[in-house]
């Protein structure tokens, strides 16, 4: 093959760029292989959508009235609203608690701690990400839940009758395994990803902006407000959304601590359920029929939800890094 190429008078040796010459089979084969591997990402994403949609037709054919109800009893009622509520509420709690902590750490590691001492701090935060989801769940159900149970009971009796707070945290049926416990665990679990993405974005703030703020007599906090924050806010919003997406899809830890009952209630100390958790816990019992189809349909629902959240998140992150490069 290569002998033929060399003899080709159309591309005299020495003058042509190597890529313009007729290329050996192995070279083209490698390119096709690499392209196929890249396309695999798109193929998997499309296949996930198609196959889960096919398998959940029995659920979708039940119509909107079936899907848009709260109850999910595994028998005749397969509503998505109850579990969707639990997913969103626990993730929102996770984000509300996790974001100030994550952004605080990101600022600490980029603006306060000198760069050469930051590494050990980063390792510690990364340790959080290395502890598997199921281990957080194990710790949650055996250690955290019984301990929180007592605290919840105290808080609930203290807040009884207080408007708003009483609705959120009061009530007689408080349990250790609840929306709020799931939110706490999620907050811990999404902190490393929000911290590391925020750090990357904040690190792109040009030194000249920061020095300019200091030169005007700003304190460090005023410099962060005036120079760092305006520059990195879009990227940090993206980082928070990535964390929110992780929280929505987190399965095992939530399944162990959210309480395993499908309910829509404003009481955050009550037990609930989430989309991912109900799939994990009930798939084994769902032998055929509408039950299994409903669980797969909920999986599709979760997939679309997290894809949308991540699309928006990545758009924010990419836009802010493009801006940082001055494009």
């Amino acid at each position, binding site marked *: 093959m290569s002998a033929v190429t060399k003899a080709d008078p159309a591309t005299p040796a020495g003058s042509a760029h190597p890529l313009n010459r007729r290329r050996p089979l192995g070279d083209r084969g490698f390119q096709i292989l690499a392209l196929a591997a890249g396309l695999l990402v798109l193929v998997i994403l499309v296949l996930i959508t198609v196959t889960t949609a096919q398998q959940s037709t029995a659920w979708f054919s039940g119509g909107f009235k079936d899907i848009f109800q709260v109850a999910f009893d595994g028998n005749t009622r397969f509503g998505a609203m109850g579990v969707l509520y639990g997913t969103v509420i626990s993730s929102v709690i996770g984000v509300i608690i996790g974001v100030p902590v994550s952004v605080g750490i990101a600022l600490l590691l980029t603006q306060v701690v000198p760069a050469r001492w930051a590494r050990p701090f980063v390792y510690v935060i990364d340790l959080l990400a290395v502890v598997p989801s199921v281990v957080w769940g194990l710790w949650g*159900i055996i250690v955290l839940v019984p301990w929180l149970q007592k605290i919840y009971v105290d808080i609930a009796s203290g807040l009884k009758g207080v408007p708003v707070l009483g609705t959120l945290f009061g009530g007689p049926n408080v349990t250790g395994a609840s929306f709020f416990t799931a939110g706490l665990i999620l907050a811990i679990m999404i902190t490393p990803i929000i911290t590391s993405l925020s750090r990357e974005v904040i690190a792109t703030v040009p030194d000249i902006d920061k020095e300019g703020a200091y030169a005007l007599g700003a304190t460090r906090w005023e410099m962060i407000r005036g120079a760092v924050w305006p520059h990195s806010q879009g990227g940090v919003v993206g980082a928070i959304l990535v964390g929110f997406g992780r929280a929505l899809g987190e399965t095992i830890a939530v399944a162990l601590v959210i309480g395993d009952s499908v309910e829509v209630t404003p009481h955050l100390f009550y037990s609930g359920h989430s989309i991912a958790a109900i799939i994990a816990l009930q798939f084994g019992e769902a032998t055929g029929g509408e039950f299994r189809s409903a669980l797969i349909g909920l999986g599709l629902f979760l997939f679309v939800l997290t894809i949308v959240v991540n699309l928006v998140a990545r758009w924010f992150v990419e836009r802010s890094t493009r801006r940082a490069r001055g494009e």
Partner: protein
Amino acid sequence: MMAAVSDSLAQPVDLREPSGWRRSKNQIMTVLMWLAFVIVLIPLGFVLVTLIAKGADAISWQFLTNSTIPPNVLPLGTGGMGAAVVGTLEITGFATLLAVPLGVLGAVYLNEYGGNGILARLISFMSSVMTGVPSIVMGLFIYIIWVLHFGYSGMAGSFALACLMLPIVIRSSYEMLRLVPDSLRQGSYALGATKARVTLTVVLPAALSGIVSGALLAVARAAGETAPLIFTVLTVEQTNPNLFSGPDTALPLQIFSNAQSAYTGANARAWGAALTLVAITFILMIVARIITALFTRNTR
């Protein structure tokens, strides 16, 4: 961005020390940032101490190697988690064999062939979106396309984990390939090498340690995943030496089922399995760190 700066410009420039309130505000915010770090240390320290204390009680040579996982009611000391240790190593190992070469090839396409074309940009963007797809969805996907036709097996679990690892490996390898200086590629072209040869013998070796450490982090993440295995591997109590057929088990699956049990023996086994699993992921992460550290020293 100029709002805060132009406000201070409107007034006469004051070069004295910041006023008391501005200084205290700065100090309060600094304390709050440190506080955020301390808040994170509390659950991390708590979980690690509990894990080591309870896990060390359970772990013994028999616990790690005995191939029969006892029923939940039995106390600690009978049987062991050998089946789950073997399962985790097999399933994660095979997933690595699938995901790492494909992921690296995908990254090669993005960086060496795709350029700034629309397809490469789409794949790059969708691979970072795909890192956010919940692991349980990957499990359902493999259940539908594989398990429904060919039954439960360790390999089905490997497929699900590989789907999870693929975008992570692509992203981390891509970042590493971008760091390889163009002069290396041009030098090799000047010697008449084909693009495939340049990529395989010059570009990939130059980025190798970065790619390996990124891949190890992906492996560490996959090894701890439970959700994708529930519908693909099922759970058995005996070692299944055949990765390619029949239900299998893995450490995360055992932790999950034993954590839900009301029996103390089962809970103790869950802690033992958890410590074993975390030890495996920590070792992978430390190896990745060492490789990264060597790599950064070399490039300097």
